[in-house]
């Protein structure tokens, strides 16, 4: 039986398509549950990026680039840093020290919660962007 290129690795392709949503979901879980359990922005970013890397490995770099172009990734990397730094600036606007989250809400614990949430989200976005960019960088070398 003759197989067209896109039909090769049928099993892998189908399994990948099934797995990717769960990987993304787990990434989000690690991201937003990081305050209560093990996890946090860095780990979540890596897990989130691994879904895209898996997609790239199975379906080829070109199709992954259609989903997430390098330009978008640059924006992601920059916006994550900006979110982190912006949180710091906001705490300063509220009259606290740099990254003193206690001032963000009416009571300190709540404020700490919000602050960590924003900062970790920034870390997650940047790490996702950096990981996928690294993958693109190495995968496109001949």
């Amino acid at each position, binding site marked *: 039986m003759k197989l067209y290129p896109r039909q090769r690795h049928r099993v892998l392709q189908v399994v990948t398509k099934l797995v990717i949503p769960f990987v993304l979901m787990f990434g989000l879980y690690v991201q937003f549950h990081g305050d209560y359990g093990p996890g946090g922005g860095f780990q979540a970013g890596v897990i989130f990026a691994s879904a895209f890397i898996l997609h790239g490995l199975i379906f080829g770099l070109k199709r992954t680039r259609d989903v997430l172009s390098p330009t978008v990734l640059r*924006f992601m990397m920059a916006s994550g840093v900006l979110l982190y730094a912006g949180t710091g600036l906001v705490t*300063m606007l509220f009259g606290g020290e*740099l990254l003193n989250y206690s001032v963000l809400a009416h009571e300190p614990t709540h404020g700490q919660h919000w602050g960590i949430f924003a900062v970790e989200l920034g870390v997650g976005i940047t790490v996702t962007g950096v990981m996928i960019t690294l993958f693109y960088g190495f995968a496109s070398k001949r």
Partner: protein
Amino acid sequence: MIDQFPALQIMVTLVAAPICVMIRNPRWSWVCAMVANTFAFLVSLVLLDKVLDDGVIRYAVGGWAAPSGIEYYIDAMNAAVLVLVSGISAVVLLYAYRSVAKSVPAEKHYLFYTAWMMCVTGLLGIVITGDAFNVFVFLEISSLSMYTLISFGQDRRALTASFRYLVLGSVGASFILIGIGFLYAATGTLNMSDLAVRIPESESQRAVLVAFSFLTMGVLIKSAVFPLHAWLPNAYTHAPVAVTAFLAGTATKVSLYVLLRFFFSVFGKDYSFGQHLLNGVLLPAAVAGFVLMSLVAIFQNDLRRMLAYSSVAQVGYIVAGFSLATQSGLTAGIVHVVNHGMVKACLFMAVGCILYRVGHVHTPSLDNLLKRMPFTCVAFIISGLGLIGVPLTVGFVSKFTLIQASLEKGWWAIAALVLLSSLMAIVYVGRVIEIMVFRRSRETGPESSGMSEAPLSMLIPLYVLVGVSLYFGINGSATLEVAGQAATYLLGGLQ
């Protein structure tokens, strides 16, 4: 508002970096970087003014108090270095716009300015922080962006130069990290003023000694003290010349600041220079550095390479001043950090102007340049005289203080060697001036007559910096006073 200035000092440039990435337009990302950098400069001026009036400023990041949280600690010493770093960066960035436009492809400009902003953030962060581990973090930020900046150079040799710096720089940075790790193991704290208290009481003095040796090696590599300077000449020669001007004025100076901070504030003068005879290592290296590297500089035919070797020599003077470990010796070292930063930035900016118009900086072919680029040449000559140490220039102020300091301690040989190496500086700077001014042009084509001066946007920043350095040369007491106050702080330990 003014309470927040220590945090703003680094936040402004840090925020500018991702914004530059998002803008993606060469001109506007430059404008963004320029605005942020100017603001950072103003902030550092306010901080210096405040420190000189009211003494030490402390700022607890995140509201967590000092020994457990990260703290920014500003005294006369680092306030002066903050002004130096942000000031030189602002002036050179203004200059960089035209210079970079010619040598870096337009689609990479925004990345260039992003790397520049990260580099400034890192350098300012190293200087402002009072936390040993935070020093390492900012050191990595500045070094990584520095490797990127160097690799923007015009030809492929920039890549190898950048890689070589990356390897040596990483060795240096990891030595510093290991040193900090041992200090943490021995004392259980990372805050510098807390470390200074706990190091003498620590039970594991051997770990402290190991930390001390690792830190020494790491910092000496980063600041390119003589036998460990191998990365510097190539990096300075092949980087875009605006980057070289920026690095020559700031990067090694910041590493020297780290050296001062650790040896004098954290370990204390008696530990560093009494018990462990650091001057037995530092002083020979420094003296060999400024004599040998001045000698090597004489034989360089590439103007940038000559200035790079001269930079290693100047680092030698600074370290020699530090290793005297007296009030006047430290003052001399600190003054020379500031003065040499300005002079070297001026020289490299002038070289950049020549490179912009002539296209090369091969010294023997620069004959009769004075006719073609009078303003650039005059700026080069003034700064060159500052490098030699002619009276009324900044070089004179710092060399005079250094010689005075070594005579005070009775080290005649050091003073004599400083003079000898200044004579060599006369030779290598004089050779360039002779070629530029007096030698007749060999080819008398139509293009060799007529003036072709560098654009104003490069000449104005150059002359601003030349003017500032002339001012500090004539009014030497202004910098000496700040440096003297900084030296008193350092010898007295952290308050």
